[in-house]
């Protein structure tokens, strides 16, 4: 095994990790506020198709700025779709599991509808910020050869960790997820805080989705996120709702998904390729089992996670 192979593998791992890291970082904030949004997959797809469409349609007029605008649009679209969920769950008190599921199904359908006319079109991939001498250096490319989104994901997970544990706003957000009734009676606007958290989660999922259509394969395909949104949800459980572990867990899944790619491409086939394709999902289940069994008291999850809160009833 030569250096080049290892470098290639590392670059691939960092690439496949980024979208789930982005989506999971957003979902971490949502769940910390006490809301379970299962619609990540749908929001990612809406982000993916929006980012792609905006970049494609404004490519001529915006030039180099087009992908940045595309990413922004993906974030907005993700946040907007999450507001549908938020309205039902937070204002109408609907069941969070079912509503999240509805958002996932809705996102899959809506993105297919919007994307139908884009199938087969390609845009320029959004994959380098640093100058060529850094980004194309045989070894330096591990650190410098990525899309800006890769660095954005790393910055966001650190920022979210800092926000949750070191800032007063983060303390309030955790308090809302820990005991909504108490937070309400002290005078914190529980519902408004949750709206904000859900919007942030939606925006991050949207950006995560756009990574598929704008960086990995710069084109649109139906359901191109291929279940990564669900992996992101498992990742949040895996992290025991901590930003540091979220980062570690994301790379763990990234390695598994890279194995799948390499198994398909190379002579790694003492096991059928389907085995490697199923591997991230099997490992996600195993990881859930290990983490959930460890947390005997259930004390790691935010205490109000998934519970409806209607302040005026």
């Amino acid at each position: 095994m030569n250096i080049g192979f290892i470098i290639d593998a590392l670059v691939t791992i960092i690439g496949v990790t980024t979208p789930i890291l982005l989506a999971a970082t957003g979902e971490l904030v949502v769940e910390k506020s006490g809301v379970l949004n299962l619609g990540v997959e749908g929001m990612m797809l809406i982000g993916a198709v929006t980012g792609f469409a905006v970049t494609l349609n404004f490519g001529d007029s915006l030039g180099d700025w087009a992908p940045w605008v595309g990413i922004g649009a993906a974030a907005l679209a993700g946040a907007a779709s999450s507001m549908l969920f938020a309205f039902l769950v937070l204002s109408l008190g609907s069941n969070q599991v079912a509503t999240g599921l509805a958002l996932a199904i809705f996102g899959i359908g809506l993105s297919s509808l919007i994307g139908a006319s884009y199938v087969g079109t390609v845009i320029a991939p959004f994959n380098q910020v640093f100058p060529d001498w850094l980004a194309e250096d045989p070894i330096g490319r591990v650190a410098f050869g990525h899309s800006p989104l890769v660095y954005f994901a790393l910055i966001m997970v650190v920022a979210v960790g800092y926000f949750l544990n070191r800032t007063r706003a983060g303390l309030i957000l955790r308090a809302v997820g820990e005991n909504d009734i108490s937070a309400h009676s002290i005078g914190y606007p529980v519902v408004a805080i949750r709206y904000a958290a859900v919007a942030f989660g939606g925006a991050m999922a949207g950006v995560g989705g756009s990574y598929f259509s704008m960086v990995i394969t710069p084109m649109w395909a139906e359901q191109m996120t291929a279940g990564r949104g669900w992996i992101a949800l498992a990742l949040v459980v895996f992290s025991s709702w901590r930003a540091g572990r979220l980062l570690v867990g994301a790379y763990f899944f990234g390695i598994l998904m890279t194995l799948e790619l390499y198994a398909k491409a190379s002579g790694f086939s003492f096991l059928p390729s389907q085995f490697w394709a199923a591997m991230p999902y099997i490992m996600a289940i195993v990881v859930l089992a290990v983490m959930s069994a460890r947390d005997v008291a259930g004390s790691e999850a935010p205490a109000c996670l998934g519970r409806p809160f209607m302040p005026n009833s």
Partner: protein
Amino acid sequence: MRIRLEKRLTPSRFMLVATPVASVLLTMALGAVIFELLGFDGPDAIYQTFITPIVAPYKWVDVLTKAAPLIIIALGLSLGNQAKIWNIGAEGQYVIGALAGAGVAFAMPQAAPGFVAVPAMIVAGIIGGMAWAAIPALLKTRFRVSEVLSTLMLVYVAMQVLNYLIGGPWKDPNGHNFPQTPPFSATQSLPNVIPGTVVPPGFVVAIALTLVFWVLASRSVYGFSVRTVGAAPSAARYGGFDAARTVWSTLMISGGMAGLAGILEAMSQLGQINLGFPSGYGFTAIIVSFLGRLHPVGVFLAGLILAVTYVGGQVAQTAVHVPEATAGIFQATMLFLILASDILVRYRLRLVRAAPRAATAGAPA
């Protein structure tokens, strides 16, 4: 003026029945507007999607064929949903059930008579679905893993099992290298429809199961225990109902139902298993379950409605050229609306004049 929510002392029975109907009607209205905005003939698209399959007799077979698996799966899911056990991986159990039945078919001699082959395959299908649902049941009761995620992850695993089997060990040697199994023999198959009628065999099973589940859910101690576990777990334990047993039984029943739907579909409609076998019934059944308000009779009617949108979606595709994905959006919209309208069952909406001393704190407008 603003809207105020007032909690009802007892849930409204009228709203319980009226809101699903209103959700369907509102979905149609919204759909017409959206299609119109997208540049299609809105009213016609809605007519083709929702009405044509009902008024055109040649579409009835299609509707009943689609309704059968939706109803069978959704009956099982509704039971679990009443206990707040969310099996969202019925699609995987549907696939594994069909594969298990097919495995039995390929293992038995081709000459085995129908009265042996058919029941053996059906039983294998049910057991296959149960086995796949047993994994999340075990994980939930032993390791407290959320069944929402585990059932769903297993859908992706089931797809890979299907891909592997039909592309490898079970690949049809005469299939021109397509990933598909060999066809079932005549004694291993069921007819598309019961001869002389428009009724597929699966639909007969769906009717029978609707009645069984009706009695089970509304009259039996078991149904009562499931409802109690869902409504108040502590009260259930106090009343002598075991939560772990409920997790197991509801997942076994919903998994078995999905497996049954899978093998019936394979035996009576496709005659083999191919790449297109997983067609999303397992996911759509979740919508059926909610639209039917988790009640067996409601589920039966909701299954028919969703089947209509499936068939009508195809009609509209050819007649009005709307994209294929619209059926999914209709279904999701219906689910959103039914979930949103839930609040009308529990609350009364009241218009209040925006007085300076406005009423209760903080309902976001």
